[in-house]
């Protein structure tokens, strides 16, 4: 039992896993929630890229869905709190570009879920811009 206790305290203390980051993002509020959600989304996207490289397409697609879900959470946290709106928009654009690059490096058969996720990220960003500047705002860079 004592060993279990020590493992729990010292074992989990090293580094910060994606699961830790996700838990912290879920528990945070406002600007901090937006930041941590985006950090988690970036990390998941790189994990997805590694999984595609290893040929584990099913797991990679699940990670891509996490990226989309936490991009939504970041945008919602920023717009509901009014904090880190600009930074969130910038980070969403970076995520979108990186995801598009990853998608283009995949086999044709594996691309559709990533392309769909890129479109969803575009929409999240467009919605955030609309909340920041009004309904007529559109993403300036769709390349």
């Amino acid at each position, binding site marked *: 039992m004592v060993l279990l*206790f020590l493992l*729990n305290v010292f074992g989990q203390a*090293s580094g910060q896993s994606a699961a830790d980051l996700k838990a912290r993002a879920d528990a945070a509020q406002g600007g*901090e929630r937006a930041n*941590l959600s985006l*950090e988690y989304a970036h990390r998941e996207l790189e994990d997805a890229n590694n999984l595609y490289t290893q040929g584990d397409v099913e797991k990679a697609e699940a990670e891509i869905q996490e990226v989309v879900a936490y991009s939504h959470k970041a945008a919602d946290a920023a717009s509901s709190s009014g904090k880190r709106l600009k930074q969130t928009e910038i980070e969403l654009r970076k995520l979108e570009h990186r995801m598009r690059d990853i998608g283009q490096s995949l086999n044709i058969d594996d691309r559709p879920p990533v392309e769909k996720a890129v479109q969803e990220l575009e929409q999240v960003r467009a919605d955030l811009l609309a909340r920041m500047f009004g309904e007529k705002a559109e993403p300036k860079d769709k390349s």
Partner: protein
Amino acid sequence: MKRILWLVWVVLLSFVASPTWAQTRDRDPLTDAEVDQMREAADYPNKRLELMVHFAKERIAMIEILRSDPASATRPKQIHDYLQDFITLLDETDDNIDMYASHHSDLRKGLKLLIEANSEWQLKLRQLKEQSPAEELQQYSFVLANAVDTVADSAKSARETLEEQNRLAAEKKLNKDYSERKD
């Protein structure tokens, strides 16, 4: 019975002491004592800005202390958290500036402190990026990049507000006493 109580105690202690439990609590970047000081300074914009700059400086100082200590497994996460707190404090500082400036309160002293501090922070954050071991930096590079952008935005916004305040001061339109503002 004693044995059962002891087991319950160990399980509870293990849960409470676990980093996961600590991480999932809602964190406040300010301590209770700091919140009290902020509250007491609410009617004194320059004092409040001075306090916020001081608290932000303390977070950066804590990072420097951590960096001077021998490397440990928890150091990257601690640096990550201090950087996140630093960002939250700068966001709050900007919100406070917007609020006081909207009432035409005289913030010039506090803004000058913030502008000077921003230059210092830009340098220290650059050093952190350049001098961190690669495997550590990987764990806080995202939040560090955010901190760098936040300092740059804060510096730009503080300079613009100071210019506006100088213009208002020349026109004698700045309020020296925030508590006597017209809402």
